[in-house]
C-alpha cells in the first residue's frame, strides 16, 4: 500500500482538505463551509475525502493542520504538523510554482502578502485591523447590488468605465457605493469599481512598502473573482497567476509539510465517528480571567489551552 498525506486548512469561512501521495500528486480534495463549527466541518470533510479515497490503494500516514482552528483540529486528528497558514501557503505555492516571488492571498476574513526569494519567505504582512478588501466585504456588497458573488467577476469584466469607489475603509466604500448607484452609475461599472477598490485597498495596506515582483500567484477565495484578478494585473503591471487549486493551497502546503516531517502516526477516517467535545471556562484564580478550552475525546480529556500562567493549567490524564 502506498503512503498518503492529509492536509486540512480550517479557516473562519471555509474548510479545505487535500490528500497527496509521496510525489505531491493530489489524490483527493474537498472544500466546504465551516459554518462556525470547525469540528463538524472537519467531520464532514473527512467523510467526503474518505469517499473519494475509496478504491485508491493508499493509506494516510501523516496529518497536517493549518488555518485559525489548526490547534483544535490538530489535537482531534492527531496531526504530526500544526502550522500557521502563512507558512503553509508559502510551502504549498513554492511546491507548485518554484519560481514564485509574490503571493497575494485574499480570504474571507483576512488578506496576506508573502514575498519569496529563492524559494524562501523573506517578508510577509497580514491585515490587522480592518475587513475592507476581504471576501466577506465583497459578498455583502454583491448582496446589496442583488448579484451573486460568483457572477461578480464576469460582470466586472463587461465594464468599460469602472466607477471610482473609495477604498480606504468598508464604511466609506459602502457609502460611496450607495451614492454612486443613486446618481446613476451603471451596475457593471460599480462592480468593476468595487474590484478596483479591493485591489487598491490591498496594495495600500498590506502591500505598502513591499517589493512586488513577478511571478505573482493570487490565492484565496477572492482569487476566483476574475474582476479582482484583472484589477490586480492593471494595478501592478504584471500577469497574475490564478491556480485551479489556489483555494486549496494552505491544505496542500501543510500536507507537504506533514510528508516532509517524516513523522508518521496511524490515522483512520473513523475519527469522523468519534465524539469530540470542547468545554470552555473562565479561570477564576486571578483577575486575568483566562478563557481555558478543554478538549475531550469521548469522556477523556486530551488537551487544554488558554491559560496565561501555571495557576490555570489543566492536567490531562496520562
Amino acid at each position, binding site marked *: 500500500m502506498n503512503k498518503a498525506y492529509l492536509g486540512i486548512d480550517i479557516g473562519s469561512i471555509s474548510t479545505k482538505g487535500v490528500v497527496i501521495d509521496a510525489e505531491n500528486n493530489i489524490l483527493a480534495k474537498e472544500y466546504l463551509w465551516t459554518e462556525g463549527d470547525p469540528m463538524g466541518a472537519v467531520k464532514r470533510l473527512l467523510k467526503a475525502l474518505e469517499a473519494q479515497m475509496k478504491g485508491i490503494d493508499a493509506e494516510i500516514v501523516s496529518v497536517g493542520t493549518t488555518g485559525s482552528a489548526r490547534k483544535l483540529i490538530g489535537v482531534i486528528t492527531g496531526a504530526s504538523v500544526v502550522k*500557521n497558514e502563512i507558512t503553509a501557503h508559502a510551502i504549498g505555492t513554492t511546491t507548485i510554482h518554484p519560481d514564485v516571488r509574490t503571493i497575494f492571498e485574499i480570504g474571507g476574513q483576512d488578506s496576506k502578502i508573502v514575498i519569496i526569494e529563492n524559494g*524562501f519567505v*523573506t517578508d510577509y504582512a497580514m491585515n*490587522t*485591523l480592518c475587513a475592507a478588501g476581504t471576501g466577506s466585504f465583497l459578498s455583502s456588497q454583491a448582496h446589496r447590488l442583488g448579484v451573486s458573488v460568483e457572477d461578480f467577476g464576469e460582470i466586472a469584466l463587461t465594464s468599460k468605465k469602472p466607477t471610482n469607489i473609495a477604498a480606504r475603509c468598508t464604511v466609506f466604500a459602502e457609502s460611496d457605493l450607495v451614492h454612486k448607484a443613486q446618481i446613476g452609475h451603471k451596475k457593471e461599472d460599480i462592480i468593476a469599481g468595487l474590484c478596483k477598490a479591493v485591489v487598491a485597498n490591498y496594495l495600500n495596506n498590506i502591500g505598502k512598502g513591499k517589493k512586488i515582483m513577478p511571478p505573482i500567484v493570487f490565492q484565496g477565495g477572492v482569487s476566483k473573482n476574475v474582476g479582482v484578478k484583472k484589477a490586480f494585473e492593471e494595478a501592478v503591471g504584471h500577469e497574475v497567476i490564478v491556480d485551479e487549486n489556489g483555494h486549496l493551497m494552505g491544505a496542500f502546503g501543510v500536507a507537504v509539510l506533514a510528508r516532509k516531517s517524516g513523522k508518521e502516526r496511524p490515522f483512520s477516517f473513523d475519527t469522523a465517528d468519534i465524539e469530540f467535545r470542547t468545554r470552555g471556562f473562565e479561570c477564576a484564580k486571578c*483577575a486575568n*480571567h483566562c478563557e481555558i478550552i478543554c478538549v475531550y475525546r469521548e469522556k477523556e480529556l486530551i488537551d487544554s489551552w488558554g491559560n496565561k500562567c501555571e495557576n490555570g493549567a489543566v492536567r490531562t490524564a496520562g
Partner: protein
Amino acid sequence: MTHNEIVACFPHMANYAYAFKYVCEHGFEVKYLIPPPITKRTLELGARVSPDYVCSPFKYCMGCYLEALELGANCLMQIYGGCRLNYYGELNARILRDMGYEFEFFDMAAVNWKSPKDIIEHFRIINPDINPVKVVQALPVTFRIIEILDEFEDLIRHNVGFEVNDGEFDGTYKEFLGKLENVEDGKELKELEKEYRTRLHGIPLNKPAKTIKVGFVGDYYTVQEPFSNYFMEKELAKFGMEVYRQMNFTNSVIHNQGKKKRKIAKKYAKYPLGATANSTVAEAITFAKEGCAGIIQVKSFGCMPEIDAMPILQNVSRDYHVPILHFSFDSQTSETGVRTRLEAFYDMVEARNGRKA
C-alpha cells in the same frame, strides 16, 4: 494630609515599581503602594473611563490608578515624554476627580526641571515636609535598582529560550524581585545583586553556538510592559530565539542615549519624529548591523511617532535585508492573530538563518 498618611503610587511599567518604591520610601519618606499586577481587569477598568482613541498606555495607567485607589493609594504620579504623554497626567487626574476620587497628583510634565525652586514646590505634593537632601541621597540606590533590573532582564531575554529546566529563570527572578521589594540600602542591594547575578548566570542552558537573534523595538510603554505586548518577548524566546532590546530605563533615563540614537538614525530620519520614533529607527539599524535575523516593532494603536517610523523601518528593512514585522495593540487584539504572525515570523527567520549558515 501629613506625610504619614500619604500612600504614593506610580502606574505599573515592567518591574520599575521597585525603584519607585525605594525613592518614595527612602527619599520622599512616604509609603508606597505597588499596584496589583496588570491583568485583564486593569485594562477593562482603564478602557471604560478613557477616551476611545487614546493610546493603550493611557488605558493601562487609568486601570492601575483605579486599582491603586481601591487599595488606599492617595498620591498618584505620572511621567512625561515626547508625545501626547505630556497631557496624560492632567487628563488622568481630571477624569479620576470627575469620578469623585480625592487624591494628590504629582504630574512630572508640570514641573520646570530647570528650576530647583519649582522642583521642590512640586515635590511638596508628595510630601509637604520634604527633605530634599534625603531625596538626593536616595537617588544613587534608586538608579542602581533600575540598572540591575535592566541588566538581569537583558540576561533573561538572551537566555530564557535555552534554559534546560522550564521556568527556572522566571522563578529565580521572581524570588529576586520579592527580596528587592524590601531592600533598605545600597549595601543590602549590593549583596542581593551579587547573589542573584551568580544564580542567574549559573542556570543550566542548552544554547547552540549559533542562535537566531531577534530585535525588539517600539513605543516606550508597549515595548517595555510585557502585558501590553502579549508577553511577546517570552513567546519569541519559547521558539528558541535570543531576544534583544535596547529600550529601557537605563538607556533612556539614567544614561540617555537619545542623542547617540538620533545620530545613528540620521541617514533615515533627519528631524525628530517625536517620542521614541528616532530611537526605534536607530535600534532597528543597530540590530540589523549586529546580525539580528529579524526585527519586531510593537506599538500601541494610534501611536503617531511610531506610525511615522514604520515607512522608515521599511527602508531599513530593504537596505539591510532584514524582515521587520509590525504589531499594533489596543485594549483588544485577538491572540490568535498575534500567534499566527509570530509563528510565521519564526518560520521565516529560521529558514533565512539556515540558508545563511
